[in-house]
Every structure is written in C-alpha cells, then in structure tokens.
C-alpha cells in the first residue's frame, strides 16, 4: 500500500456525520474500522471517487439503521391520513389534523429523544429526528404518487383539492421536517440529559 493511501481521508462531512450517528463510546472504534477499510482495501482497489462513494454509502447505512423504524411509522401514519382524506373525506378536517399533528410531534420527539439516548449525543438526537422526517417524506411522497397514479378519478381529485390540494401531498411532508426538527431538538436535549445523571460537565 502506498503512503498516499495511508494518508488519504474520506469526505470530512461524511466522517463528521458518522460520528454523531453512532454511540459516543463507539465513535473512535467504528470510525477507525471504516477508515482502515477505506485506506487498506477500498481505495487501492477502486480509486478515490469510488472509495468516497463507498464511505458515504456506509455512513448512510448507519443513518438508515438509526432512523428507519421511526420513519416507516411516520410515513404509515401520513399515508393513512392521506388515504382517509382521499377516499373518505370528512365534513371537517379539524379532528384528523389534530391527531396527525400530535402523532407527528410524538414521532419527531421520540426519534430525537431515543436518538440522543442511544448515541449519548445531543446532536445525534437532532440528526435522528431530521433524517427520520426526510426519509418519511420520501416514502410518503413516493407512495402518494403511486396512489395518485392508481386513483385519479374526478371524485378523488375533488377530495384532494378540498383536503389542501396536491401541495399538501407533495410539499408538506418536506416542509414539516423543519418544525419537526425543532421538536426533535427539544426532545434530544432531554434524551441527552437523561443519560447524564449528575455528570452535566460532559454535555
């Protein structure tokens, strides 16, 4: 192995994110394992660009494992609401909106709280909430598109229009990530505090 490979480094942003996704007490060992694999096997056999992509894929894998359960539950709740609004439109959307909002807040907060507890990192919790929302948004929009492709008769389109229109279907899932991350941030602070006990110096 050449010295060039010995000194090579993966994308700094990916390394930085990785360190917030894994448990605090495993940060060094896990990022060290990845760096060793990157320098000793991946880089010499695949070249710099491909090795960087490999590293990013590994990092995304850690992010996915940390958040997919919350994301799937969130997406399922959003899709259930979407399907109900399309196929069983109510007189008033107030109750459904109330339930959906609180479910969303609870899921963002849970992802943030448990993300911070698992990683023992405040930033790890915030990241878990934000990524959970983004993954859920992608799943929701994809599934909504499929539903729209299957059912787009005038009655369904009218129900969609009365429920907020296509903006609500395709833009809201991404917009909601912003306030959702605020709730995740608050919950992450509590999650981190819950792991500290009296050792407030290590926050």
């Amino acid at each position, binding site marked *: 192995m050449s010295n060039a490979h*010995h000194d090579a480094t993966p994308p700094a942003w990916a390394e930085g994110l990785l360190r917030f996704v*894994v*448990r605090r007490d*495993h940060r*060094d*060992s*896990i*990022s*060290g*394992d*990845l*760096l*060793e*694999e990157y*320098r*000793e*096997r991946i880089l010499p056999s695949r070249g710099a660009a491909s090795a960087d992509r490999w590293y990013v894929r*590994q990092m995304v*894998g*850690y992010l*996915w*494992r940390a958040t997919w359960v919350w994301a799937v539950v969130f997406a399922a709740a959003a899709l259930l609401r979407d399907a109900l609004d399309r196929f069983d439109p109510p007189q008033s959307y107030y109750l459904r909106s109330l339930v959906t909002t609180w479910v969303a807040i609870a899921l963002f907060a849970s992802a943030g709280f448990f993300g911070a507890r698992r990683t023992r990192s405040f930033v790890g919790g915030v990241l878990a909430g934000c990524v959970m929302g983004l993954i859920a948004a992608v799943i929701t929009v994809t599934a909504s598109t499929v539903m729209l492709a299957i059912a787009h008769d005038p009655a369904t389109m009218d129900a969609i229009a009365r429920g907020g229109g296509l903006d609500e279907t395709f833009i809201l899932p991404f917009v909601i990530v912003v306030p959702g991350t605020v709730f995740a941030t608050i919950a992450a602070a509590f999650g981190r505090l819950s792991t500290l006990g009296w050792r407030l110096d290590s926050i």
Partner: protein
Amino acid sequence: MADTLGTFEQAVLLAILRLGDDAYGRAIMTDVRERLDREVAAGAVHATLERLEQKRLVHSKLEAGTPIRGGRARRYYRLQPAGARALENARHAVNALWRGIPRRLLEGMS
C-alpha cells in the same frame, strides 16, 4: 431459554471465535465477508456486535489504534460463556434439522 441466533449473528460470533485475540471490528467484518462470500455493510456488523454485547454474548474492550486508522482505538471482542452456549445450541438445531436426510436425496436436484 437460550438466545436464538440468526445466520448473521452466527457468522459474527464464529468470526470472533476464529480470530481469537485479533477479533476487532474490521477484522470481524473481513472474516464475515469472506465466509459469506459477499459484501457486508460495516453498519450491519457493528449493529450486530452491539446487539450481541447487549445480550451479553460477547464482551468488548478498547485498545490502542494504529496509524492506518488515524490512531483511533480498536474495539476487541471476546466470546462470553453465554455466546459459546448460544453457538452450540445453533449448531445442535441445524444438525437436528439435517438428521435423517441422506445426501442422495439432494443429489441430482441441484
């Protein structure tokens, strides 16, 4: 009741057993990849190690890193008695499934 191990968990535990004193994260990853003959995600190996440690089937300790890994510590894993028992149980379960199946039944089918 003893823990029931999945195939990947068995692969990781067997890698730890095989590597002995050299069983740290990346070495385990390499061993599992070679034995399963496919690429394995680092996250899958680390998540499995974390789970096995939570189940107290393995124990880990940190040791000094090397320059190739930027000096970052290596986490070495060692099989615990409960881990050895779980592996034995897994082997017995597979052997029991195969008992009474003569090799000739499979010949000519694959």
